[in-house]
């Protein structure tokens, strides 16, 4: 109920904004929806949305996998932490734009550079969060698993993974929001398809209606992933904290 009220307030504010700024700077919601329908019916919206989501997915999986492994190793081994920390600080402070431009120059204007650049922007963030998770692992449970000779797979699944799950979920949530924003920049600079590319076209034409027609559904899809996938997953892995049998 309150969510619907919130959505209603959003559209009301939008309409007021249209009256103040004028339709050239801020098109009316109905005009944006009409343009969105046109793009959807032509198939262009789904194509560009699909391409962008594929890039988001690939970069996200790559960044989480690499970041989780490196973060875990750095959190568990002091030498690895000391060796990796300066690199981590460097990557954390390197602007996303610099990484993207360097990737396009060094690798070329292709998918490898695009996805790699996005992943590289997310990896340090995943490392930092998973490193904290690895540092917080309970050494007593580790000893228990050793004494009872838990096989590696059992130890990974039943001892380590549940302890790391909240950190992984936190990294996933922040990572998803970071990745999709950077993917749009990558597409805007160096790809010929995707939502970022269409936003660039809209910018060149100063077509605010087209810009919003692509931006809104993309935000909607990312919100849906957050609400229907990431949050339920987070609740599931944290279920034991509530003592549910």
């Amino acid at each position: 109920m309150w969510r619907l009220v919130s959505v209603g307030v959003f559209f009301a504010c939008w309409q007021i904004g249209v009256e103040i700024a004028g339709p050239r700077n801020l098109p009316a919601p109905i005009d944006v929806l009409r343009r969105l329908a046109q793009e959807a019916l032509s198939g262009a919206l789904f194509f560009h949305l699909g391409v962008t989501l594929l890039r988001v997915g690939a970069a996200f999986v790559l960044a989480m996998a690499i970041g989780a492994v490196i973060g875990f190793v750095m959190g568990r081994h002091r030498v690895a932490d000391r060796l990796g920390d300066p690199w981590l600080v460097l990557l954390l402070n390197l602007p996303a734009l610099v990484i993207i431009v360097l990737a396009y120059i060094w690798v070329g204007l292709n998918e490898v550079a695009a996805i790699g650049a996005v992943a590289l922007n997310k990896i340090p963030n995943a490392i930092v969060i998973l490193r904290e998770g690895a540092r917080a692992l309970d050494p007593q449970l580790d000893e228990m698993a050793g004494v009872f000779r838990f096989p590696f797979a059992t130890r990974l699944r039943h001892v380590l993974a549940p302890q790391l799950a909240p950190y992984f979920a936190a990294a996933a949530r922040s990572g998803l929001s970071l990745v999709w924003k950077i993917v749009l920049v990558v597409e805007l600079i160096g790809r010929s398809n995707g939502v970022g590319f269409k936003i660039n076209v809209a910018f060149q034409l100063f077509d605010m209606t087209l810009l919003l027609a692509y931006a809104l559904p993309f935000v909607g899809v990312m919100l849906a992933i957050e609400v229907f996938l990431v949050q339920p997953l987070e609740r599931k892995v944290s279920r034991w904290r509530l003592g549910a049998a």
Partner: protein
Amino acid sequence: MNAKSLGGGSARLEVSIKSKAYLGASGERHDALGEVAFALEKGEVGAVVGPSGCGKTTLLRIVAGLDARFEGAISRRETDRLAVVFQEPRLLPWRAVEDNVRLAAPDIGDEELAALLATLGLSEHRRHFPRELSLGLARRVALARAMAVHPDLLLLDEPFASLDNATASDLVEQIIDIVAARAITTLLVTHDLDAAVRLADVVFVLSERPARLAARIVISSPRRGLTPEAAADVTRKIRTAQ
């Protein structure tokens, strides 16, 4: 350190520690254990007692193989299965009671698991998560987990700490039943002299830190064969030796 394998003799555990020390933050040496040597035969229950902080748990950790930085040797049979009941139950909080037991003993059958849980009064808690259990119940789950692996050598670290007298007494009885029925070689570390005297065949008394073996007191008619007078006499000997 040395972890040696015992041959075909009757001894199941031989402890021969020369010293154990920790290094402080600024590199200074803190001696935790002095010379401690004893042996246990198959099915024998040994209790290690001593003043608080004398190094009892350190000794148990060394025997369990969890601390390898010491001078001396621990010898046990390579084929012997080891189980430890830690002072903190160390259950996986995200797994129910029966899963905690099963993970340590994946081959355990449903009937055996049910019987084990029933023996320890855990049947109605089998689907409960550890956070739903009292400390006493959690310790019983830890004991069930240890028993489920059919250990040849059982190490118990202060299993009665923080329990009320009735709960501790129940747990002592359950340990007596299980250990005696299965002839498990057991090393118990405790500050509870009554429990030590009720459970053990032999009591190893440690001195103040750095702990040395101050006395070895053999109990002639151990466990339920011990009269209250004899128990009081053993307790008195332990107190004198400490």
